[in-house]
């Protein structure tokens, strides 16, 4: 059990905080999904060639995080065994009831898209993998169809464009919806705001790009491979622009609260200057927003005048800071909204437990799962390039149109 210290007058039923680390983690994970997907779509749909090196990885990463997006929710439910009620008997007036359908639809779109991107690799491996068991696995993954001839691939590509075109708004809905969950709670002055979905979406994009950036640079460094500077530069630019819009909206929200000065501003002011001071102004604003704004901004503005290696390092540091920013933002929204009572006269303290169902350890373990899934995936299919085109040079894939099977199997 948590120990909640209350000050002032807290309504008797509010001396417990119901939504804790898990509900902080959930929008963080779906945010990374939405952001990573948008990066991959920039290449696959909008033809941003410079993002080619991370295009596949970003897509698979989105999928890996999406796979585990429901876990924190299940872990916090009072009755996880009834979770499917949300799809069996959805209440049409509840924003939350949309979750099951939006999530499933998006998961399906993403899975099919990855399947199409990797189809030539799957087909190739269904024939050429060493172990018979692995060949069987690839055969199942290919749904028994290993036709990857020109016409078939062309059809795949067309379907993929359509799916990505649906996938982008779906990613936006999936994450905008999370913001709406909070923004539509009129009972909570810290949440209720039509800006909330937009802020959640923008910060989702920031965190997704940052996660791709950090993973790409780290993996390349660890594996001793060449880092594509044009790709890093592009990711940094997208991250920087998204950050600017995101932080502008976040601050607009705050300034609006202060300037309008409704009856709830008194308690929000106290909340911001006490309970949320460190996580809001020090972590989210200073460390997470101002610092990366200047760091990444330097790369954006001075571009080639900064050495490539320096830009990579700035990208890595800046990416980590952005990930901290978004995590802090999730914390400040979710926990901030529950640290004051609806009596508008009292506060609650919340300290994260280390152990326990919604403790720090289970949150960290949960967040590690998508990375584990990525590792497993990387042993089944290449994360960074294509085997079917040239197994020796995994980075040689330039565009989908150039994907040609090395041999004809028919």
């Amino acid at each position, binding site marked *: 059990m948590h120990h909640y210290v209350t000050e002032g007058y807290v309504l008797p039923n509010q001396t417990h905080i119901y939504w804790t680390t898990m509900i902080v983690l959930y929008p963080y994970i779906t945010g990374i999904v939405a952001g990573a997907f948008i990066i991959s779509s920039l290449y696959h749909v909008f033809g941003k060639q410079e993002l080619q090196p991370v295009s596949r990885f970003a897509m698979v990463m989105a999928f890996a995080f999406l796979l585990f997006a429901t876990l924190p929710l299940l872990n916090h439910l009072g009755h996880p065994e009834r979770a*499917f009620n949300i*799809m*069996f*008997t959805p*209440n*049409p007036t509840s924003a939350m009831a949309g979750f099951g359908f939006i999530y499933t639809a998006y998961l*399906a779109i993403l899975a*099919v898209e990855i*399947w199409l991107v990797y*189809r030539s690799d799957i087909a190739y491996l269904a024939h050429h993998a060493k172990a018979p068991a692995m060949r069987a696995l690839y055969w199942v993954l*290919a*749904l*028994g*169809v290993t*036709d990857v*001839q020109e*016409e*078939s691939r062309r*059809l795949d590509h067309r*379907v993929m464009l359509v799916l990505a075109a649906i996938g982008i708004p779906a990613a936006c809905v999936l994450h905008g919806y999370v913001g709406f969950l909070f923004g539509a709670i009129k009972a909570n002055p810290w949440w209720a705001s039509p800006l909330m979905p937009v802020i959640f979406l923008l910060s989702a994009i920031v965190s997704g790009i940052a996660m791709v950036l950090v993973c790409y640079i780290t993996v390349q460094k660890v594996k001793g491979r060449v880092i594509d500077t044009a790709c890093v530069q592009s990711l940094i630019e997208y991250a920087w622009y998204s950050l600017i819009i995101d932080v502008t909206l976040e601050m607009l929200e705050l300034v609006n609260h202060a300037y309008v000065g409704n009856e709830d501003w008194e308690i929000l002011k106290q909340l911001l200057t006490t309970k949320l001071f460190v996580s809001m102004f020090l972590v989210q604003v200073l460390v997470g927003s101002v610092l990366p704004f200047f760091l990444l901004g330097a790369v954006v503005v001075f571009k080639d005048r900064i050495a490539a290696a320096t830009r990579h390092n700035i990208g890595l540091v800046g990416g980590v800071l952005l990930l901290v920013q978004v995590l802090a933002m999730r914390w400040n929204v979710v926990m901030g909204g529950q640290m004051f009572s609806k009596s508008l006269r009292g506060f609650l303290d919340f300290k994260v437990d280390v152990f326990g169902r919604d403790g720090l350890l289970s949150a960290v373990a949960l967040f590690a799962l998508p990375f584990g899934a990525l590792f497993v995936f990387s042993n089944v299919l290449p994360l960074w390039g294509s085997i079917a085109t040239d197994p020796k040079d995994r980075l040689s894939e330039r565009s989908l149109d150039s994907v040609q099977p090395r041999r004809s199997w028919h």
Partner: protein
Amino acid sequence: MRHAKHFVRLFALLAVVLIAFLAVRAQVVPKDFGTLGRFRASAIKEAAMREPRHLGNEACSDCHAKVNDAWAAGKHHTPQCENCHGPGLLHVKVMSEDSVAAYPDRIKAFPKALRPTTGTQECLWCHLKTFERPSALKSIKNVERHTIEKGGTFTAASKCTDCHNPHTTVVKQ
């Protein structure tokens, strides 16, 4: 369509998943869900079914007629039996099974069947003077001072019921 074979299989797979979902849903959702509104209709009946735990003075007077008569004849009407003694349901259930002779044993076996009364706390719930309490209500600032003011001797064991009969509020001699 020669090269769309994999899409045919994909759609077949999706169709299987969808049909499985609908089949499970048809099995799992209660039949009366949605008949009265977007909820399980029998939930209303279940909510109404529960047994009341507070039984009311009439139920108490079935066995405790004497004290109920005294209460009715007295001037302390606003609190009823169960205000101070707690809900009677469990008490009645426990006691109705046996004769009055077995009462002491059963009380020992089910001490929580009724709320144990202290003879002071129950009175102070209403009659302790706090600033916010309407002044028309007879209330005292402090039990000790009240006892001394009224010429009594206050000890740690003193109770309001030493002098007052809570069922009638007649001051005992």
